[in-house]
């Protein structure tokens, strides 16, 4: 031991004293004080910061990006997402969710749903003030409360949202819905689209008293909110004019390798059609075509392929797993099984 006895003790005390006094007078005060006086003072959140998922819509809330393909439901590690597909009065399945629940008491904020979503429909919010009085019902987020506009997404994550918009523009196919004039937004939507900053980080400087601060905090969440959105919204009409399938000679269809059977189009490739209708359209086609018709037609890639790719893989025997089509659920699985059994491939 060097020096006099007790030297180590005194040196340690000097360090403590330096830190204590320095936290009041030092030029490096900010280095020594890393705490924030929450909630009056707020730490700026980095753009990547994530809490709970929300659903993005373009323009108005009925232009939801989500197609209810259930990829997120399948991949969600703690299984906190529950989705039911919507259907029109005739029972025809629609490309949007009827029920979309996220149990935020179970959600572990991992962000895997946002990562795997093929449609950029689910993204991670950065709002962490979600405490509730109740433990059960209040902590289940239903569809209306999950909807947030693309503008909100741009507000919280500008870089990421720009990147997503760019890829979507590149990938997006021209659809009749996109060409239609945008409907005038209702008051609730207008509030969302208004250019007022959605989330100020600190209260305005002219708020001084404690009561004013409390009042400001109380109104804080309301600045954020999208207002009440009533679900279900107007049923969007999906024009489906299936062309009559050009019948192919049955003998040729069996002999044709799966990949080359594209002639005659894929009239069943419309997720608005129900399974029986799709199977009828593909009745006289090759095995790969019939397999494809059994799928949910979302090209969601939950199986690791698009619908055509998965059908080809099954027909060629690359994979034997018929359970991969998540949006198709049991009816797709059973149909695939039947088709493959008929063809003697299972």
């Amino acid at each position, binding site marked *: *031991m060097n020096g006099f006895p007790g030297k*180590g003790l005194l040196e340690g005390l000097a360090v403590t004293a330096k830190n204590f006094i320095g936290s009041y007078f030092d030029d490096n005060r900010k280095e020594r004080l*890393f705490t924030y006086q929450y909630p009056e003072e707020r730490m700026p959140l980095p753009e990547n*910061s*994530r809490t709970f998922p929300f659903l993005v819509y373009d323009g108005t809330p009925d232009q939801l990006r989500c197609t209810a393909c259930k990829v997120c439901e399948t991949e*969600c590690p703690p299984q906190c997402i529950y989705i039911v597909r919507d259907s029109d009065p005739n029972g025809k399945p629609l490309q949007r969710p009827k029920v979309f629940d996220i149990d935020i008491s179970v959600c572990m904020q991992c962000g*895997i749903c946002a*990562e795997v979503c093929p449609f950029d429909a689910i993204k991670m919010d950065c709002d962490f003030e979600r405490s509730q009085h109740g433990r059960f019902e209040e902590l289940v987020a239903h569809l209306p409360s999950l909807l947030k506009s693309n503008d909100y997404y741009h507000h919280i994550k500008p870089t990421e949202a720009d990147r997503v918009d760019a890829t979507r523009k590149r990938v997006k196919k021209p659809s009749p819905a996109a060409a239609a004039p945008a409907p005038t937004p209702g008051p609730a939507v207008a509030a969302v689209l208004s250019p007022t900053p959605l989330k100020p980080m600190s209260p305005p400087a002219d708020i001084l008293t404690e009561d004013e601060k409390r009042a400001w905090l109380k109104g804080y969440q309301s600045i954020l909110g999208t207002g009440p959105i009533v679900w279900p919204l107007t049923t969007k009409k999906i024009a489906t004019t299936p062309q009559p399938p050009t019948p192919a000679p049955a003998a040729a269809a069996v002999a044709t390798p799966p990949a080359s059977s594209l002639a005659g189009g894929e009239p069943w490739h419309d997720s608005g059609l129900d399974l029986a209708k799709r199977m009828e359209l593909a009745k006289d086609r090759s095995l790969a075509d019939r397999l494809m018709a059994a799928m949910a037609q979302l090209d969601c890639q939950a199986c*690791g392929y698009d619908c055509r790719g998965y059908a080809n893989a099954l027909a060629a025997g690359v994979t034997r797993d018929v359970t991969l089509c998540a949006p198709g659920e049991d009816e797709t699985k059973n149909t695939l099984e039947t088709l493959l059994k008929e063809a003697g491939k299972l």
Partner: protein
Amino acid sequence: MSGSGLIQTQRLEVSLGPQHPSTHGVFRMDVVLDGEYVVKLKPVMGYLHRNHEQIAEKLTWLGSMPYTDRLDYFCSMTNNWAYALAVEKLAGLKVPERAEYIRVIMAELTRLLNHSCAIGFLLSDCGAWFTPVLYALRERERILDFFETVSGARMMCNYMRFGGVRVDLDETALAMARRLVARWPSFLDEFEKLITGNEVLLARMQRVGILPRELAINASISGPMARASGVAYDVRKVDKYGVYDRFEFRVPVGETGDTYDRYMIRILEMRESVKILQQALRDIPGGPVIAPEARLRGFKVPAGDGYARIEAPKGELGFYLVSEGGTKPYRYHVRPPSFINLTVLEDMCLGHKIADAIIILGSVDIVLGEVDR
């Protein structure tokens, strides 16, 4: 029975924990005392058991990644890496160079924050009430800020992916990391001045809880604990996984294997980590951060089994995986360093006073999330 025979004494059984502030989590020690001396000690674990391995066998390969964050919740980055490494080994994925460097940066920053907090809490156990651990937490906070900037979460990063990492480090993030690394040596100097030469500390720690070299090897102790006992074994040097063969760093090794050595080893390892970080941040190449053949949805791993291990801050962290060729593992097993390091607790504590048992446990550096899984 002890004593001179004048006073009749008997042994006392004490149940220490599971809610004792010095047990570092829900962990219990059944201690038999003779006076103040420990004659028997039985660690009782399992209070935090969450069925991690069984859950992983029900999830997709990717689905287990956020669960690995919750093993050793101080070091989510290294947990991610070990799991990703095991899956990459099975799937034959090659990781791009930039991603390998990013992984090294993240792992070494994790080592810095883990070691600084480990010794901080150890000093709290010694009675240096909260000043050292507060300084450690202050520095850890800056690293967590960096993790949040990059990965989106402070502790549950969920950052690594099979075949790379999820988000690239941009120039701002790299500058932030460089600032962190640059200020770390001065923090260490201040920290050492605060406590290392402290006479009370030396009296409490030296020759306490000696773990002999042979026992450390026989009990397959790994990490700083084994190195403090004089076992020069570091998976970074032995396996050279990732790009660790490109960095110049030394492996500190202790002599006596007492609590003070385990404290000192961590300080020295942090200094070596700073060296690795400086080299990694200097040499980091450009390019993609994820392998082009890596996929998220419907990811399948060819049938087979494999074990991959890394040098996590607490020791050798390994994942043993068996795949049937499907979208989920058939068997998933974790080799947690703190669990195995805890098995020699009784050997280290025997013959010491009960107050020493507390600091010996502190020097093992356990996280119950990993011990119980």
